[in-house]
């Protein structure tokens, strides 16, 4: 039974839950793009500001479904800020396009709500509910520009594949439930750890749950959808999938497996997935001509890197995962931000050729993009470097030598295509200047400001990571 105190602790979630309703009504009464964006940004900010407001009441188990603790709140904060960035990026993008504009923000708020529920879920029911709120709002978001063939195709693909993977997930949940008679993570963990607790049914259920999670995270061998969907979705939405959707799912994965012990078969499964994701992502990215596809494959590889820290045991594990995810959020949003502001009225700037000689046309955007790519590659002075350092430290601390070596090898492979992209940025513009897409479309001041903030964060995390590290220690006690 939910109590008043629970409701207060859940205030950020309630604000986020009420937001789509209010925004929907506002659209019905007065359809105005700026107003809709303002409301959306206002609600996201209000929910974010409510987080520290109720921090003193934590941790609180609000019904068995939602664990309102500082871990969930940290990730919810990350999700809210990323959604805010995506909403602001979408504004500039939609202004350029001939589409219905306002409804995107309703879907975005709903998706953020689903992601926040995932980050706080401590029960299969809330897990599934959060996942479905997120997925169902992502289908129309991906196919938002449905008049472009790619968009509709990507939406249908995601719909079918996500439905199939959700059925795996729910079947796995049913198997686990049939074995233990409970759907709470903590009690499943207790039953699983008990002597003789892990039967074949429970392990089979766990494996099917891993399939469902692996799909959502786009990890090999469940990664096939990622490039097509990133290519078809509008660039801000692609950034949203890469960060919020995957990050929330990873937060859930970490919570689930901090309560359910990682036994030998699970360790083996995740090791294979991690190695597969790293190699598949990096090797296939080498052959891509499309920037969005390169970023998609790079995101597959980055989830593989994250698994290294996830499989590590010891105090560094939550720290490494959280720091890396934060750095990955900043970097990926920055990269997709550049793609967004460069996209024109008709098509997205996603071909490699669109970027040839960008350094002449726009040194500032080139600088931002270069910094983001270097961070993805894990170069020093960027957030990506500190993140990767933590991953290696966590992996080495638990003697996961195979994974650490694969990670290092893959970082080298990854360097190739990031540098190739950077080389294209600085290459001489093609001969036929007339054949070029018209000089970079005018970027709104809002876009410049956002990219500036993201670049600042990237460098700040790379040069002075201590404040964030202390903050993560405060919010997520090592366990």
């Amino acid at each position, binding site marked *: 039974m939910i109590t008043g105190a629970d409701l207060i602790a859940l205030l950020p979630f309630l604000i986020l839950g009420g937001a789509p*309703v209010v925004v*929907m*009504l506002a*659209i*019905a*009464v007065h359809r105005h793009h700026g107003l809709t964006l303002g409301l959306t940004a206002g609600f996201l900010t209000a929910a974010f500001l409510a987080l520290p407001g109720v921090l003193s009441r934590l941790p609180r188990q609000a019904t068995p479904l939602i664990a309102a603790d500082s871990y969930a709140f940290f990730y919810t904060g990350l999700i809210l800020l990323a959604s805010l960035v995506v909403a602001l990026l979408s504004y500039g993008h939609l202004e350029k396009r*001939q*589409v*219905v504009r306002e409804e995107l923000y309703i879907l975005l708020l709903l998706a953020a709500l689903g992601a926040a529920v995932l980050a706080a879920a401590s029960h299969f029911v809330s897990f599934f509910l959060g996942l479905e709120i997120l997925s169902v709002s992502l289908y129309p978001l991906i196919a938002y520009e449905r*008049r472009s063939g790619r968009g509709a195709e990507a939406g249908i693909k995601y719909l079918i594949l996500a439905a199939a993977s959700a059925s795996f997930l729910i079947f796995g949940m049913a198997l686990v439930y049939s074995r233990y008679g409970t759907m709470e993570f903590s009690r499943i963990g207790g039953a699983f750890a008990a002597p003789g607790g892990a039967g074949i049914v429970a392990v089979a259920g766990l494996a099917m749950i891993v399939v469902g999670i692996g799909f959502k995270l786009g990890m090999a061998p469940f990664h096939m959808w990622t490039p097509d969907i990133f290519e078809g979705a509008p660039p801000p939405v692609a950034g949203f999938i890469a960060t919020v959707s995957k990050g929330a799912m990873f937060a859930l994965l970490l919570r689930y497996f901090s309560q359910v012990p990682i036994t030998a078969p699970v360790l083996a499964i995740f090791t294979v997935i991690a190695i597969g994701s790293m190699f598949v992502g990096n090797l296939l990215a080498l052959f891509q001509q499309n920037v969005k596809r390169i970023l998609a494959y790079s995101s597959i590889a980055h989830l593989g890197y994250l698994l290294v820290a996830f499989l590590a045991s010891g105090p560094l594990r939550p720290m490494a995962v959280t720091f890396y995810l934060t750095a990955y959020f900043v970097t990926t949003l920055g990269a997709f931000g550049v793609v967004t502001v460069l996209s024109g009225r008709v098509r997205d700037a996603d071909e490699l050729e669109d970027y040839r000689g960008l350094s002449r046309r726009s040194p500032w955007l080139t600088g931002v993009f270069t910094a983001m790519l270097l961070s993805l590659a894990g170069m020093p002075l960027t957030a990506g470097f500190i993140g990767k350092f933590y991953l290696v430290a966590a992996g080495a601390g638990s003697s996961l030598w195979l994974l650490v070596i694969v990670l290092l090898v893959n970082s080298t492979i990854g360097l190739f295509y990031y540098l190739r992209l950077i080389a294209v940025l600085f290459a001489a513009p093609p001969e036929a200047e007339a054949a070029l897409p018209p000089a970079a479309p005018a970027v709104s001041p809002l876009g410049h400001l956002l990219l500036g903030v993201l670049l600042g964060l990237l460098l700040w995390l790379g040069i002075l990571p201590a404040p964030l590290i202390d903050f993560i220690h405060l919010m997520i006690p090592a366990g």
Partner: protein
Amino acid sequence: MEQHSLFDLLYVAAFFLGGVGFAVGPFIISHLLAPRGTRATRAKTTQIYECGMDPIGDAWIRFGIVYYLYALMFVAFAVDVLFLFPVALVYNRALGSRDLVELVMFVGILSLVIIYAWKKGVFQWERKIYNPR
């Protein structure tokens, strides 16, 4: 216990066979019973709609489906009403007013969707061409 679950499986199998029979049966029955006495009836049995009338034109034409959003709304609400059945089962067990408040919240938020759809013009069945804005 074993016996019991075996019976359950038998039930499932029986229902499965029944379901398949229900789907396949009409085809077989109509194949057996369809009159093919005269040339006219024989020609008609090969038509797509075997109803005795000569079809006019092709089914592959474009027709106005202005009502499909309306139908979609109906389906959405029909599904949501399903959630009220479990509520009816536990209604008034404890703290009656609380149940009422929760119901009002659920139905109330759903009803707001009608305002949105109404303003969007879903309920106007005119021939219209949606413009992108």
